[in-house]
């Protein structure tokens, strides 16, 4: 490395990630960094501009040139909205729990003992991405109806459908995590020491894919926070349905924008924070 870079100078690559890129020529590195920062700048502009327009609109008052925060302070005044937020958050928690309990043991099991099923599982997990929610609901409605005859269903029962919707995202995240660790060796080592399968999964493999688990949780949460079609057709009021109803009934366009911006910001911060939490835990274990 000393032959490539001047003594005492530290390239950005070495500060960030010495391992993979330490051996690249510095000119290559500079071009790479230029490329990266150009891409990030353009991407940030594209994605932030509509959001910025939205936020700006939420501050616009009734007269041109006038600005007000009333659209934001009004959010708390829609009683149905707070209920819908609470329901959606609870739904997110339940969906995550069921999703992970369903997927993690299955995927580990398949990797260890039933590899020939892995293609099928992958296919099934990607299917929800491609079947329109409207088609799914047309088929789900009879199922929900027959259950509703006997049992009154609270909106939290939407989780049955949400677990399906989140499968593609959770599967991807978990598969990436499982690919990164050597599940076979871990499992064999644990089993040869007398561990039960439950112990293998929960106490040996899962902690090693903590980041992937977290990732799956984040993606599932983002999905639940953003889901509209199924809830509205099955006549439940979740966050997005409530926002939609507000948008149709409100006198003030600003309120629609402030509520959407708030919900996006909330989801984003939640995901970001969770990603840091996961990393620290992972670090400690090493």
């Amino acid at each position, binding site marked *: 490395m000393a032959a490539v870079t001047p003594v005492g100078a530290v390239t950005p690559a070495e500060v960030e990630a010495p391992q993979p890129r330490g051996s*690249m020529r510095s000119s290559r590195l500079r071009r790479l960094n230029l490329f990266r920062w150009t891409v990030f700048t353009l991407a940030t502009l594209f994605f932030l501009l509509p959001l910025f327009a939205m936020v700006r609109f939420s501050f616009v008052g009734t007269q041109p040139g006038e600005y007000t925060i009333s659209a934001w302070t009004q959010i708390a005044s829609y009683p149905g909205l707070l209920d819908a937020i609470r329901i959606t958050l609870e739904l997110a928690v339940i969906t995550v729990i069921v999703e992970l309990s369903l997927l993690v043991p299955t995927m580990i099991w398949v990797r260890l003992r039933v590899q020939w099923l892995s293609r099928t599982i992958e296919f099934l997990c990607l299917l929800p991405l491609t079947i329109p929610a409207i088609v799914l609901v047309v088929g789900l409605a009879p199922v929900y109806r027959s259950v509703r005859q006997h049992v009154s269903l609270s909106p939290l029962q939407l989780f049955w459908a949400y677990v399906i919707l989140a499968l593609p995202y959770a599967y*991807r995240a978990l598969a990436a995590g499982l690919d990164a660790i050597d599940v076979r060796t871990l499992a064999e080592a644990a089993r040869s020491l007398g561990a039960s399968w439950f112990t293998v999964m929960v106490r040996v493999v899962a902690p090693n894919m903590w980041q992937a688990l977290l990732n799956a949780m984040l993606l599932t949460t983002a999905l639940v926070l953003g889901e509209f079609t199924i809830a509205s057709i099955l006549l439940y009021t979740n966050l997005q349905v409530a926002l939609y109803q507000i948008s149709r009934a409100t006198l003030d366009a600003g309120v*629609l924008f402030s509520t*959407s911006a708030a919900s*996006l910001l909330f989801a984003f911060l939640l995901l970001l924070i969770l990603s840091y939490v996961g990393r620290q835990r992972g670090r400690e274990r090493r």
Partner: protein
Amino acid sequence: MAGVRPVRAGRRLPLAWTGTIPFFAYVGLFLLLPTGIVVWNSLTDASGKLNLGSIKTLFDPAVRMYFVNSLELSAISAVVGAVFGAVIAYAVASGNPDGLVRRLATAGSGVLAQFGGVTLAFAFNAAIGPTSGFLTKASWYYDFPQGISLIYVYFQVPLMVLVFLPAVDGMKMQWREATENLGGSTWHFWRHVGGPLLAPAFLGSTLLLFANSLSAYATVQAWENQIAYVVPQQISIAITSEVGLASANEAQVLALGMVIVVAVVMVSYTLLQRRTSRWLR
């Protein structure tokens, strides 16, 4: 040593698949069964007999137009989203795996891939709408497919980042360095190593984006709701029309059409994935 159990008991092997029963039961009940119900209902008439006449209506010129529009919109948004998403994914993957940029990109992609519907359409309207746009007033905003494709790209790109990033991560930097050491240029690398390697994953992800766009409904309905351009909009009309045009049968036939298109896409995706796995293991 005491307490050591044999790791694999030969006689238990054939039953190992039963461990996946909970998964298959759940997916079977809540995904395959509803889809099956839709397909079944569209192929049978009210008394339950098989009636393939509904398939013929899929070839009606009006119905064909919905499918053509859907395919056009999906193709544009998938290709554009895939290209930009792949570039961003590469830019993210070539950085620090633990760094802030990566985190922001992952969190941002996770949120924006799900961002759609009324709020997205309104955000774009506030940005470039023909009457209330703040950045510019785009007269083509309500034209099909230009306006809506741009909006779709907004959530397709993050989705591409999410599904393509693992593939880019799997492409080891050592290969890049090896090419360099052997005297190859960047172009060489992409043409002979990186390109062929990532191509199946890239095409597979594009197909996923395509299918995702086909099934999107809330966004296009919020963008405009007075003309039915794409199939999901027409399905909604067939379910909710209050001027006498509601037809459960039409809804199911259209849904069947979508399932067929999606099946074709998914089969292609699976075939492509077989090729990817060879390299990335």
